[in-house]
């Protein structure tokens, strides 16, 4: 009974399935994209529909420093991924720390921007539709940056205590994928909030 003639799966070593961690992260990112899409749609829908000011043009300044830092951090985390894959832990720690610092600078930049908006312009989440949509969209992204920084920080800590080894490179890649996603979202948010609505939304 135990012998059934079968030809086509004789090559037993060829049974490889996709990485659980990476696939799981991709799924999480799909869900996150759905959430961000709704906030982006709300922002676009309410652009220029305010019954009272201020408008984006009046209060927003383009956050050059933060944007350059965040987007370039994707490059450095990519270097770190390669370093740990090849077992170069010293280089990994360096690039990972650079990524962390760049992310932190972005967050500091955002918090200074919010500080200026709230204390100087008296522009808050309840001021008008622009305030509601602006703070919730940028805030949603910033909360993802905070979460990312916490996890980046943990990995950094583990890499210094020696608990992180080259065998963990796949897990590091999973986290890096999340960080790439946070960066990619900023491309959309930045373009929409600081370029399109600052220059277009005049109705």
């Amino acid at each position, binding site marked *: 009974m135990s012998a059934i003639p079968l030809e086509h*799966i004789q090559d037993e070593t060829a049974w490889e399935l*996709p*990485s659980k961690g990476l696939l799981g992260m991709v799924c999480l990112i799909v869900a996150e994209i*759905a959430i961000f899409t709704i906030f982006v749609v709300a922002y676009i829908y309410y652009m220029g529909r305010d019954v009272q000011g201020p408008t984006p043009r009046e209060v927003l300044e383009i956050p050059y420093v933060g944007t350059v830092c965040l987007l370039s951090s994707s490059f450095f985390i990519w270097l770190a991924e390669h370093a740990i894959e090849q077992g170069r832990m010293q280089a990994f720690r360096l690039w990972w720390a650079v990524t962390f610092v760049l992310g932190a600078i972005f967050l500091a930049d955002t918090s200074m921007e919010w500080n200026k908006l709230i204390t100087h312009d008296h522009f808050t989440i309840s001021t*008008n*539709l622009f305030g509601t949509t602006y703070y919730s969209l940028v805030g949603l992204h910033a909360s993802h940056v905070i979460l990312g920084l916490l996890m980046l920080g943990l990995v950094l800590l583990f890499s210094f205590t020696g608990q992180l080894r080259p065998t963990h490179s796949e897990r590091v890649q999973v986290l890096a994928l999340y960080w790439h996603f946070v960066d990619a979202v900023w491309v959309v948010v930045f373009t929409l909030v600081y370029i399109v609505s600052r220059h277009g939304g005049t109705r």
Partner: protein
Amino acid sequence: MSTPTIPVAGGIEGALDRSHAPAPRGTYLDVVHSWIVTVDHKKIGLMYIGYALIFLIVAGIEAMVIRIQLAVPENHFVTPFTYNRMFTMHGTTMVFLVGMPILFGFGNYLLPLMLGVRDMAFPRLNAFSFWISAFAGILLYFSFIGGLGLTGTGSAPDMAWFAYAPLTERAFSPGHNVDYWAVGLLINGIGSIGTAINILVTVFSMRCKGMTLMRIPLLGWIYATVAFLVLVAIGPLTAAQGMLLIDRYLGGHFFDTQAGGSAILWAHFFWIFGHPEVYVLVLPAFGFANEIIPVFSRKAIFGYAAMVGATVGIAFISTSVWAHHMFTIGMTSFGNTFFTLSTMLVSIPTGIKTFNWLATMWGGKIRLATPMLFSIAFLIQWVVAGLTGILLSIAPFDWQLHNSYFVVAHFHYVLVGGILFMIFAAFYYWYPKMTGRMLSERLGMWHFWLMVIGFHLTFDFMHLPGVLGMPRQIYTYEADRGWGTLNMIVSIGSLVQAIAILIFVYNLVHSYFRGEPAGPDPWDAWTLEWSTPSPPPSYNFAIDPVVASRRPLWDLKHPEDPDSAFE
């Protein structure tokens, strides 16, 4: 070649661990502790199912309160305030605390067994998802105790399950009713997304050797599709509820019409979640039919590839039909036309599925056991539900009947006649696997026939007051409207259904102790879960199985005519 045969079926044979002895039971506290800390997919699956059954009873009682209130004209069985809470909580509970958990429960239990692996991809995420969802359900129901307390039914949500803005804004709903709803479902959504990630990764990264994508049992494809829909549908709901909470707690203006906000945007966001959600609930029912109908027709499923294609097709189409819930909200004629046509498009993949099931039964040697009876009733009722759905997809027709009892009858035909019937079929089919004992067929027959009679009394007749103009969610109606007799019939039908469900619950409990021992494979079925003892040991398979076809147990039982020879 020295070995022209490879031990493929032997792999399964090795996995038939018949020496399984149940572990000695500890004290009562040990048992409770083992269930609370478990990461075993089977135990988590059973907890999901038990949790859902409790809320099925609760939401069923709410439905009975609604039906008693509406049975006769100008009735004052409950206050209008309580009535609003009843229909809101009935809908919310049935969708979020019954439908999704029971389907996740079956998925959790069955997927690793069917895919020939030992657990879900992320067991601890699985436990986390269950417990956070359980917490959300309890939080939602805690609302009955808060505020005015039990007699006034507390501060339970009372703005209907779709919670249209601007009623939900702070100015119009000052208490905590909306907050319980928004926070409860937001937390529940975290659990749903966790489980969806788990299911998708399990199906694509956790298959036993030889189980290529086109050899996965169709239930696996269905659950992968459902999980994808959960990811893209729950996100918008979570986002919209976040916006609602920003409005209510931080003074935002998303849905505040006074400040230029839009109530219609809420409707869009809600239904962008709401319609795919229908398919999240109905696709697992299709999945159960895909497994049960072939086994009880003694034929392999007709058109496996077409079934996979139709499943994925439904998922994609279902994300672009949401505004058919909003024809009366005032869209452009282009919008109306688009959503009419996209909605009608759904009938193509669902039609493919229906005809494939019929073709599977055609010429088969049909065994009319309870799982098959429920499946056949499902087929008929599902077609009727689909037909009224096509009627309602036509915008001018919908303008007449929108928010009437016709719509209520239509979606209950889907949810009860389609989904609930298949869930019952799944219980009768897999209960022996889960407990090691058969459900009583005699009680099952009573359950089935009472359920069919009650269902048709209730929901066939519910269409009529709708056509006569009775709107949904009304508290009561005048005697001269001529809806009284019809509503009485509907209420009597719901009582018959309640009796049927009580028989079912009794059957579940009774058969657990007194049922016939089931053995590993009581239905002479073909998928891998039946190769394990009933109930399966915590490790599922002693040896990782290796499969060579879609029906590995058929290959094992019929070495003279294996499926693998034809693939």
